[in-house]
């Protein structure tokens, strides 16, 4: 498959000596939705800024559709769209004025801009509000307008830095829908960053787990989950006799997909299976029945990207993100103050 983005041994060290990105390599296929998943300060935004030519890499080679990003930054700018982490909308201009100027900065003609802005504004449900000042827009609308602007010149590769930061669940899902549509209708390659597990899971074909400037794992969400072990079935037997239970568990161990049986307290056992836990559950039932044991409850848990994250970084994302809430709060405060 053809590669839209190729990064080899990228390192970015900021002036103060902060190593934001530490020798990472990866590629993104054409037409793929690729995600960078990581906590605050992992180096996600830095990577994007280097890829669109806003920052110079300290070391490393970068290619966009085969063009060297460091040597020909002007050339790649026409092919990339960028919606920054913080929405960059001039709120003293109207929605249409914002997008019109963006089109002009990409050297489009008035006719082209008029046609395309109608198209993208309709797509993002902003067309009815096109003549309103951006000042009157909600956070979700601003974010949508920002992404719409990034599309006005029909980029081949779209970079979205935390496209759903600070938005509520509903708005987040509509934005996911827009992103999926973009890929489906325009075969666009999309590189996005996020620290939401569900987002990476719901959207991305492949995900890179990044932490402290290093890539810890890259694969499809499914494969990443597979790597850390399969589904976990938790069973609670109602039988008192340990002997009978051991007999059942012995038979369960015979099922080929069962990898491990963990002894739990209070007759609760964890059965780790390599795949398709939902198909194993009926078998466990029939084995228990044959041995005359009743099951109080049974639960199937698929590993989440959360578990993947824990596996590859040794931390839950929350541990790294304690200050996330307060960070978002101060950002919202700042935004209000600016008005």
């Amino acid at each position, binding site marked *: 498959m053809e590669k839209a983005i190729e990064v080899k041994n990228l390192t970015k060290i900021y002036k103060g000596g902060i190593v934001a990105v530490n020798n990472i390599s990866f590629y993104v296929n054409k037409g793929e939705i690729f995600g960078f998943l990581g906590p605050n300060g992992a180096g996600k935004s830095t990577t994007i800024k280097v890829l669109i030519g*806003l*920052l110079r890499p300290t070391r490393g080679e970068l290619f966009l559709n085969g063009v060297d990003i460091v040597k020909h930054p002007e050339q790649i700018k026409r092919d*990339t769209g960028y919606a920054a982490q913080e929405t*960059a909308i001039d709120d003293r201009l109207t929605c249409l004025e914002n997008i019109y100027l963006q089109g002009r900065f*990409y*050297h489009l003609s008035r006719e082209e801009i008029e046609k395309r802005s109608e198209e993208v504004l309709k797509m993002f449900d902003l067309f009815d509000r096109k003549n309103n000042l951006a000042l009157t827009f909600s956070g979700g609308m601003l974010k949508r307008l920002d992404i719409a602007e990034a599309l006005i010149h029909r980029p081949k590769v779209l970079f979205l830095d935390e496209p759903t930061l600070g938005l509520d669940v509903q708005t987040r899902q509509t934005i996911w829908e827009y992103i999926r549509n973009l890929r489906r209708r325009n075969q666009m390659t999309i590189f996005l960053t996020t620290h939401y597990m569900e987002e990476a899971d719901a959207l991305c074909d492949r995900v890179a787990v990044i932490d402290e400037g290093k890539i810890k794992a890259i694969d499809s969400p499914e494969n990443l989950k597979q790597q850390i072990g399969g589904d976990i079935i938790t069973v609670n037997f109602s039988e008192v006799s340990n002997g009978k239970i051991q007999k059942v568990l012995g038979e369960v161990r015979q099922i080929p997909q069962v990898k491990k049986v963990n002894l739990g307290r209070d007759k609760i056992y964890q059965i780790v299976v390599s795949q398709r836990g939902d198909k194993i559950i009926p078998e466990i039932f029939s084995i228990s029945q044959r041995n005359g044991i009743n099951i109080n409850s049974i639960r199937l848990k698929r590993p989440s990207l959360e578990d993947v994250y824990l596996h590859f970084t040794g931390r839950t994302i929350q541990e790294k993100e304690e200050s996330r809430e307060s960070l978002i709060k101060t950002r919202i405060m700042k935004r209000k103050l600016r008005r």
Partner: protein
Amino acid sequence: MINLIVDSWWVAYRELIKFFRQRTRLIMVVVQPLIWLGLMGNMMSGITNNPIAARALGAKSYLDFMTPGIILMTVLFGGVFGGLSIIWDRRIGYLEKLLASPINRGAIPLGKSISSMIQGAIQVVIIVAIASLLGVHFQTGIFGILLIILIAMLFSLILSGLSLTLASIIKTHETLMAVVNFFMMPLMFTSNALFPITVMPKWLAAIAKVNPVSLAVTSIRELTIHGWGWREILPSLSIIIILDIVFILISQFAFQRETVE
């Protein structure tokens, strides 16, 4: 080159939309010269009754003398907006957006300068109109007024060049305002904008003679009070144009470097 000009226009266009949309600012643009000219001119009107003062001013009324000073003062302070708007754009991420787009980087400072120049020109037109209503007679007529506007625009270009260059180094509003004021106030008060050089103490007169503000004021005053005194105007205008070129180049250089870390 064509791109630089076209891109600059769109950068300026954005500022101009906002300029015309801010009603309070537009009102201030009219009210401020009205107060300065009306109040100050009236307060000081008695001064020309004193023949020595009248000779020092070289004008029939203090208002005639002061109008060129007010014109300069207005464009002087207008030039600061260029730098402030860059800092604003950096805050809201708009600067990053501009840098990520394929526009010529030089269009960012140039566009801001062009918008300052246009805004300055509008303000000068308003001042000239108000001054005329208050009885100031521009000796060189409509063409003289056009040249006055041009000189004011060229002068505002120096100031926006300066403030834009500073804004590429200084990242906060407060610091920029402090630094700009540090230049602005002395520039204003060591010039002949409000007082004639002949009444100044020697040391101040020496500074006032080389102060670029005085150069512009002298030319505009010549056109307002006396006539087409090219001998006064040409040398001053040349120096202003040289300063323009210097500051445009410095601000261009500053922005070619912007965010390339």
